[in-house]
């Protein structure tokens, strides 16, 4: 197992796990797994690597509490528990042939990275992909290798980056993701938008997408709620008639509107 910091502050790290062949499981982009640090606890983390690269199973974890802190303190070679995959994942079959607009903020790029790399690995099956990504500062941008170097080099992929606050070296755009998105004004024609990030960013991105003419069924997002069992039994992630761990975390805006506004 390797541990790789994504941000300069180290508050986000990517854990790469090497599973023996017989333990490898297939999954869809957008699905998650429960990572266990025995003695501390478990938490649900999105798989941030694509199923097309099973030898590089990766989880990107933001340090926010006890279990994530314990995950951050792991050294290569240490042992964790994994169970999964859980959740519905992105509807990769239905997205075939469509243009993709990926809008993410901060750690929110993690589940979408799985989808983006999946699309990169199966490039001809999907239309043009535009990635709009922002973070608070340049140091907080994750997956720097991909966003600066490898993704812009993929045919029919554009990467647009912004930060809330620049620094001395930053020469790119400065501004919040939702307004940045509106300035870019991507066309909704034949495109599905997928967004993930802090709740407040999602709220404004959804508004921006609506202003840009995206229909509710053209917008997918991932919902994050506290989860414990991961199997739709303990009730923790219940929202309306859904369990996020089983029916989500990916929901279309159409489905989201039918849910109580408690997320």
């Amino acid at each position, binding site marked *: 197992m390797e541990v790789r910091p994504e941000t300069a502050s180290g508050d986000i790290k990517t854990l790469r796990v090497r599973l023996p062949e017989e333990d490898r499981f297939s999954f869809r982009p957008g699905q998650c797994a429960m990572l266990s640090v025995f*003695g501390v606890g478990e938490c649900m983390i999105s798989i941030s690597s694509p199923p097309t690269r099973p030898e590089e199973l990766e989880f990107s974890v933001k340090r926010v509490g006890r279990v994530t802190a314990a995950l951050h303190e792991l050294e290569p070679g240490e042992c964790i528990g994994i169970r999964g995959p859980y959740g519905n994942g992105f509807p990769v079959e239905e997205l075939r042939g469509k243009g993709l607009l990926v809008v993410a903020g901060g750690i929110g790029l993690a589940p979408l990275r799985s989808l983006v790399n999946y699309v990169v690995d199966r490039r001809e099956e999907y239309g043009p992909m535009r990635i709009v990504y922002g973070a608070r500062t340049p140091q907080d941008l994750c997956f720097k290798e991909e966003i600066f170097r490898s993704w812009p080099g993929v045919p029919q992929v554009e990467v647009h980056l912004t930060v809330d606050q620049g620094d001395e070296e930053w020469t790119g755009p400065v501004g919040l993701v939702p307004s940045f998105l509106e300035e870019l004004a991507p066309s909704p024609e034949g495109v599905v938008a997928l967004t993930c990030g802090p709740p407040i960013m999602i709220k404004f991105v959804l508004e921006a997408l609506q202003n840009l003419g995206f229909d509710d069924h053209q917008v997918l997002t991932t919902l994050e709620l506290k989860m*414990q*069992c991961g199997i739709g039994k303990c009730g923790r992630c219940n929202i309306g008639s859904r369990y996020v761990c089983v029916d989500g975390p990916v929901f279309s805006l159409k489905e989201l509107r039918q849910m109580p506004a408690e997320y």
Partner: protein
Amino acid sequence: MAVKLVRGSDMLRWLRRCGEGRRWVVPAKEDRHWLFAERDGPVVFPPDYRNATVGPKGWLLPRSEPILYYRWTGGRVSVTPAQGWRPQVIYGVRPCDLKAIALLDSIMASEPWPETQYLTRRAHTVLVGMACTAASSCCFCTSMGVHPAESYAADLMIYPLQGEEYGVAAFSEVGREWLAQLEGEEADAAFSPAVPALSLPMPTSLEDLPGWLERRFDDPGWQRLAWRCLSCGLCAYLCPTCYCYGISDVDRGGAGRRVRWWDACTLPDFSRMAGGHDPRPTTTERVRQRIMHKLAYHPARQGEILCTGCGRCIEYCPMGIHLPAALRLLGGDGR
């Protein structure tokens, strides 16, 4: 109704024989409250017995229990699932609690991930139900479509008849096996079930109740109801259909166990996430969640109301927050 007739003392003897080797869980009076507790065998109830304060839920989904054990050896961890379920008989379960068990069974069995620990313990359990001849002041089963003489999840059902006599019927293979060991032929018996004293102020039919509530999601009535909620977990713990649980690790340095324990959506930190964000920060959201889950969300998901009218929330909430109060406040009564 076709039952085998039996006198009380013979019934207890027969049941004891059939349940030989099993743990007996029966309603027992401790101080002033009836609780389901482990005892030697079944008993005849006093005529004023209605229902136990705490239902038998804890014998199927314990208050807390290990789900796995782990041990570290040389940097590697080995994990063993919890096991060893003792066969048991839960005796004297009222139809409201029997229906609740049936609801829990379908929840725990639901795909894509059946909850095998509950289901295994459940498979090791024989349920002997007892129909109701008298209602308590707080029960309202019929308002929730539950009948005080139905068997629901029971393997065997006992109907108290005149004097010392009881009628017994079987509703499962195990039940039939046990009943075959009871002397006597089947006969027809008339049983007068209890009539609940309470009839809920239902604003609409049970089928339409979920939609009626969902249209009132933002109704100020929720706040008028919930302001006096003190965020304890009493209602959820006494409720026979509440099943939410939390999971944590109990570490003993090098080894330990992962346990699950009853949780309640009314408790303050239930939905609070590690980063601090909480979608249900006040009692208004939490009380609304509990009631909506029972009467709207679960029906939308699995087609049944998640309340069996046992009346415990009415009897025990220290601040008088319960289903009748909720329905009345949302009905625009204004109180």
